[in-house]
């Protein structure tokens, strides 16, 4: 897009945002690829599918990769398409909660926001904890210490801190790293595929090994075990709402952001399947791998040897680092947008944009603190009761899957309801829409969301159910203590005069003129 067209588009995008009562406070500089890249980086097949590879293999055997991955991918594509359609129609950073609030009422919006928030805390904690789970043993091997729950927690804390600093002060650096991350993920998958296909010590398993059913290393009946194992794929496919949360920073958002959501899922399916296939076909002893501390590390090391395997594993681990960086970007935008509408206690703080760095700095640090707190609670529980059956990563990921997917599902349901009432009509749809396919796709999406939410909290992951129930109880208390008197909802922004909106924007326009390239 040349400079003149870009300026014209920016003005159009800004005016569209102003209609919702919001000023253009965030820097609108992301193109289509950047918007896709942030979601692709947060989905991160090299984080979710890798860190939960043990979980998937343990419960569902090799067939989890060949069959579980496409089953989950199909339904997630439908969910992504449903969300993409809403993104195009209502292009604000609040996304899910904003859609819920104006499709129904502010109470629906408030609950959606908080459930989304709970899911996001789980996501950030889960991703950075995954990085720590991989980096700590690798560091321990290099520096000669023993990797323990404590050392992993320390690595996790340092990672969160670094991510917080970068997100606070380096908006353009983060944007570049985001774009690089997408290519990095693809590059590492190619390296993995080539390494395992051509440089493995022994030959690969036959293709049918990938679709083998009946083998579980758990004590559950296979069908139940397979469903539990779906957490691996389902957690991988979280966070693509990032394209919607960064919509106020995207040029031509009503087309680019929905494509960002949808194509990030589609490409993750392809590259994820390639990666999972070659890794699974490299397995020599599935039982040994599934019962090891980390099946993925075990398989790669067995197949490629210690040195080459170590290099490949470090490449994969860095992908997780990029994923964590992007997840904090996305979460902080959601928190900023919700605080802008006074949805949180001390909202004015979290809604503040740093004039120097153009980032929601305080929201970023609150994200870091909340994510650390969640993992710390789990660490304390395990210190008190070391015989807990679940793993930290399964706990964090189950919390985030349920939180996020319920938050994804609520506006999809409310859209169907608003359509049935006649309040949301075809003329309200944005350019990216599904036409007559919308309703069946939305319905199938909701069925899957209901089903998977239940599967994520049954034993052995019942602690996730308790955690979610406790969080919901806190929400109810906050509802009566805070929401009733303070939350005005996004529609209150419609009372902001254009004059006030433009005054807010003037604060930043001088800076934009200095920084524009």
């Amino acid at each position, binding site marked *: 897009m040349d400079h003149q067209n870009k300026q014209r588009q920016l003005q159009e995008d800004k005016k569209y945002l102003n209609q919702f009562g919001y000023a253009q406070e965030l820097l609108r500089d992301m193109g289509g690829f950047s918007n896709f890249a942030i979601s692709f980086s947060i989905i991160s097949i090299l984080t979710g599918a890798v860190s939960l590879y043990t979980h998937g293999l343990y419960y569902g055997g090799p067939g989890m990769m060949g069959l579980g991955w496409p089953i989950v991918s199909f339904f997630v594509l439908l969910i992504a398409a449903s969300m993409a359609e809403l993104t195009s129609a209502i292009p604000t950073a609040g996304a899910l909660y904003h859609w819920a609030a104006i499709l129904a009422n502010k109470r629906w919006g408030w609950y959606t926001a908080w459930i989304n928030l709970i899911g996001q805390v789980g996501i950030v904690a889960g991703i950075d904890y995954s990085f720590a789970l991989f980096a700590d043993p690798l560091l321990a091997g290099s520096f000669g210490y023993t990797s323990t729950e404590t050392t992993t927690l320390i690595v996790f804390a340092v990672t969160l801190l670094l991510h917080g600093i970068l997100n606070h002060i380096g908006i353009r650096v983060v944007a570049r790293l985001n774009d690089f991350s997408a290519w990095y993920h693809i590059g590492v998958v190619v390296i993995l595929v080539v390494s395992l296909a051509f440089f493995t010590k022994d030959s690969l398993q036959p293709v049918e090994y990938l679709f083998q059913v009946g083998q579980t290393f758990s004590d559950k009946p296979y069908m139940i075990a397979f469903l539990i194992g779906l957490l691996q794929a389902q957690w991988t496919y979280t966070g693509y709402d990032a394209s919607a949360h960064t919509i106020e920073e995207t040029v031509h958002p009503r087309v680019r952001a929905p494509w960002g959501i949808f194509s990030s899922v589609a490409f993750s399916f392809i590259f994820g399947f390639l990666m999972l296939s070659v890794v699974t076909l490299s397995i020599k002893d599935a039982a040994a791998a599934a019962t090891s501390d980390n099946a993925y590390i075990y398989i790669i090391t067995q197949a490629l040897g210690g040195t080459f395997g170590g290099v490949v594993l470090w490449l994969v681990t860095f992908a997780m680092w990029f994923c964590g960086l992007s997840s904090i970007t996305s979460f902080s935008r959601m928190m900023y947008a919700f605080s802008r509408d006074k949805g949180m206690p001390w909202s004015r703080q979290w809604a503040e944009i740093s004039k120097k760095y153009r980032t929601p700095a305080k929201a970023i640090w609150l994200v870091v603190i909340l994510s650390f707190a969640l993992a710390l609670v789990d660490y304390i529980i395990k210190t008190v009761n070391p015989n807990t059956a679940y793993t930290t990563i399964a706990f964090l990921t189950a919390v985030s899957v349920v939180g996020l997917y319920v938050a994804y599902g609520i506006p999809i349901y409310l859209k169907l309801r608003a359509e049935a009432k006649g309040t949301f009509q075809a003329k309200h749809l944005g350019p990216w829409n*599904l036409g007559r396919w919308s309703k069946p796709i939305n319905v199938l999406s909701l069925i899957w969301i209901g089903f998977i939410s239940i599967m994520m909290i049954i034993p052995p992951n019942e602690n996730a159910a308790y955690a979610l129930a406790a969080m919901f109880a806190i929400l109810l208390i906050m509802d009566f203590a805070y929401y009733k008197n303070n939350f005005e909802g996004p529609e209150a922004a419609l009372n902001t005069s254009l004059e006030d909106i433009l005054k807010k924007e003037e604060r930043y326009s001088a800076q934009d003129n200095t920084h524009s390239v």
Partner: protein
Amino acid sequence: MMILGFFLLLLVLAAAVAIGYKANQSVRNFDERSHESFIGHKAKK
């Protein structure tokens, strides 16, 4: 099970292509003049 596996793979690819095609058609055929922003109930008053 290999047949089921390949069927599932094709199903996902077909869904991705079909939805992508449909969405692309919608973007091309979009008419801004007949579009109305959905900004909530208060906007209607």
